């Protein structure tokens, strides 16, 4: 489902952010990428969403080879991957309903399909009754659940979540993780980056540890210890 083959990313000023990273993630897997701040987790995330190009190496996601991807096809790629950001990235002038609907609107779904789909997804993330609220009227946890609803509403085969609990208190963080587990249960491959030790250890999933831009461990049921 996701393949990284000897992927490196070097910045002119910062130097090397990722060094020959190889990773293979099977469909329906739930994989956690862990590492300290600056380890290269976000760089990896940005490469997968094609916000950046690797300096070298090969990336294939959902059968799409990024080397062959043209600029005009990037929006199409992003519509196939569900993405959750640490800072939510919700549209402030749109309501909860409209933020989630936006993901379907850009894919060209009809109004009837959108009307039919959104209540189910909001129910899945526990936001029933908040349809008409604006993001600023919600708590951090609720905002992140809106972002997850937006990411999964198109039923993507892959969901990438970059530190989705980073800005949340423990209770809200767990709410978000539970939603991600639920999404994975429905068959979506989930790639979660985090440095929250408690969450990683409680989930008992595959854990890939990155340190200084390199993969230092990859365990089927991993544990994580903050250095």
């Amino acid at each position: 489902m996701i393949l990284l083959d000897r992927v490196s990313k070097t910045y002119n000023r910062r130097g090397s952010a990722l060094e020959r990273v190889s990773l293979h993630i099977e469909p329906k897997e739930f994989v956690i990428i862990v590492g300290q701040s600056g380890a290269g987790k976000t760089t990896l995330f940005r490469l997968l969403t094609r916000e950046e190009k690797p300096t070298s190496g090969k990336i294939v996601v959902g059968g799409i080879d990024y080397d062959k991807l043209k600029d005009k096809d990037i929006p199409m790629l992003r519509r196939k991957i569900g993405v959750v950001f640490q800072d939510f990235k919700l549209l402030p002038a749109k309501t909860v309903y409209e933020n989630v609907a936006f993901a379907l609107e850009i894919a060209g779904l009809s109004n009837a399909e959108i009307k039919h789909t959104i209540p189910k997804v909001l129910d899945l993330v526990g936001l029933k009754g908040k349809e008409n609220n604006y993001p600023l009227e919600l708590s951090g946890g609720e905002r992140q659940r809106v972002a997850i609803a937006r990411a999964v509403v198109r039923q993507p085969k892959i969901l990438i979540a970059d530190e989705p609990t980073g800005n949340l208190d423990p209770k809200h963080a767990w709410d978000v993780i539970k939603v991600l587990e639920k999404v994975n249960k429905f068959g979506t491959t989930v790639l979660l980056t985090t440095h929250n030790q408690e969450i990683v250890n409680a989930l008992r999933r595959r854990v890939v540890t990155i340190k200084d831009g390199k993969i230092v461990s990859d365990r089927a049921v991993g544990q994580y210890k903050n250095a």
Partner: protein
Amino acid sequence: MKEHRFITFERIIKNGVVNFGRNIWLALAAIAMMSITLTILLFGVVANATFSHTVNDLTSHIDVSVYLKDNVSASQRQQLVQQLNATGNVKNIVYQDKATVLKLYEQANAGNTDLLTAISETSNPLPAKLIISPIDPNNLETIKTVLDKPANANLQSDPTSYSGDRKAAIDKITSATHFFEEAGIVGIAIFVLISMLIIFNTIRMAIFNRRDELVIMRLLGASSRFIRGPFVVETMLYGAVAAAISLIICAALFAIASQTLQASSLGLLDISYSGHFFRAHLWLILSGQIMAGIIIGAASSAFATRRYLRQH
């Protein structure tokens, strides 16, 4: 595919209109700026039209009188008229025979009994004349060249009115009006350019404030058209509203202030014409303003959003 395009188009329009309402404070700030700029521009256009009207009015009174000897026959006069018409710079020629000239002279000097008595004591001393109205007062030389031909000069009892001090005065007036007309056109062009820059910058600032939205939409996989479209629709609305506001401001200004302005222009300018021009061209001005507002708004937002779309 066609249906998908229609849905996208419908959503672009809808989102643009909704965004306009939801970002009302930002919209009001941009509209205020655009209204002021368009008002200044419209004021400049009307002022230029008023000035041109005054100049045209002034130059339309410039004519050339040719005084004919008493022995000039009708066919000789006709030949001269034909030659003058052939110059292409003659609007019309009026012939006044001796009796008519005398009658008009008497009417003009009705209060001066001494002069009228002196005139009546001799046979009519005033020559018949041709009054030539030129099309282009800046180009009276073409007429003068015909009149100065020896054969034509022999028909004239006195030098034409376009000679000596009068010629110098006419030449000065025409060259001055010519200069002011050109200056008016240059002035309007500069106004247009500055207006466009101000409006572009206003919209650029409004979009800069919302650049995060553009980036988020991009990361979610929205196409450039889908992201840019609502911004373009929104700024087109800014332009249309600003155009309507500027029109109302100008209408009010001309209605209220034209009398005061007329007095302060010392009668040099026909200020009342500005109101007349405004009313006569109201629909043209309204559609022109709205079109200008919409086009500048759309072009500015399309250009301003490009930067953020390209980076992501």
